[in-house]
């Protein structure tokens, strides 16, 4: 689990935001495991959930306030 969490953090470092399902595909992991890992990372304050029409996860502390940063 710790290994998976590290992989997720590494993946998120390279993107602005992503859906857990895409992360699972990209890092070749099981979606349910990725969901669980994301829940833990959120509780640890390392990632945050972002809602723009649908939900994404993003590294904690990134500023997504509309107007402050351009969302792709």
């Amino acid at each position, binding site marked *: 689990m710790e290994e998976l969490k590290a992989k997720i953090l590494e993946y998120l470092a390279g993107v602005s935001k992503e*859906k*857990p*399902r895409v992360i699972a595909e990209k890092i070749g992991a099981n*979606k349910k495991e990725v*969901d669980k890992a*994301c*829940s833990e990372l*959120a*509780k640890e*304050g390392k990632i*945050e*959930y*972002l*809602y*723009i*029409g*649908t*939900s994404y*996860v*993003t590294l904690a502390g*990134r*500023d*997504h*306030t*509309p*107007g402050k940063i351009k*969302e792709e």
Partner: protein
Amino acid sequence: MTEAKKTPLLDELEKGPWPSFVTEIKKAAANSPSAQDLLGQLELSYEDKRGHWKHGGLVGVMGYGGGVIGRYSDIPEQFPNVEMFHTIRLNQPSGWYYNTKALRQICDLWEKYGSGLTNLHGSTGDLVLLGTRTENLQPFFDEVSNLEEHPFDLGGSGSNLRTPSCCAGPARCEFALIDTTDLCHDLTNEFQDYLHRPMWPYKSKIKISGCPNDCVASIARSDFSIQGTWRDDIKIDQEAVRAYVAEGFDIQGLVIDKCPTKCMSWDGNELTIDNANCTRCMHCINKMCKALRPGDDRGATILIGGKAPILQGAMMGWVIIPFMKLEPPYTELKEFLEKAWEWWDENGKTRERIGELILRLGMRNFLRAVGLEPVPQMVNAPRANPFFFWWPEETVQD
């Protein structure tokens, strides 16, 4: 505080024999700068004929992915006090029962951290708190979730399970055929993680009605509509039926002719029901509740796929399980929900609800995935169109 601005367009909404949200926001505006600016921005949007809210951004509380809906003004220079105006959803108790103390605690906290405006209850079911700034979210949540007597959790928002909600149920309604309040509470606890951490293609809703009267409109408003029903015969007290008729009750016009399956008959003395053809619509029981009662073999019908228009048009639920016994710990229901969610999560496109996915991939695929046998009662859209209205002259009014 800014001078109260003129709001001629909003003032129109105060004219009429109904309560007006404008009147209420004006009252709140006396003490709340954000309520004041809310009126100003709303008036401007009526002039411009376009909204001035933008959503998005990252708002929420630590560890959660739902429960807060971010809202920002797109003209903050004009209305600085609603520059951020986030909505918080609180998970309501089953059936919306509160005591006054619980409500007072929330109101006090909301005056401290928010605009003081609330909306009981949003269409989702949650207790909705309107308007606060990002930096107030965490302190508010820390307090509300640690209240000594009646602590509250956040409800759902985002691509997750939305706060399950139910009708008043057996606590207040004679018609309840299942314990809606217990089931709602149980499912909320069971699926906490799905409620707080969005991981699905889009939202998923559960609404529970104790009987087919469907007071929470679950068939039109939820992906999983659970409605209490019975499968044995309607209980008839023939003496009581005769008493209705003796009092001048139009049994033919108001009951027999309005039975949707025409499975009832009245020979002037005896009421007969062909129960095999009754669809358990509740109409006759509602009309003659002293004479007719639902049967004793009770459970629920489960419908799937109700939703408002996003990808497809508005859809109403599709009967998927005609009858399921529903008693704690509700294992059969929970297993069904898990299987349905898993199939949807694996196959759904972003922003595709489960009903839309079933349309796209076919009921065959769904049934195989969740392991259900097709049966004739799996009626596609028992009522197809939520916007259908009968011609007044074609209906018999009471």
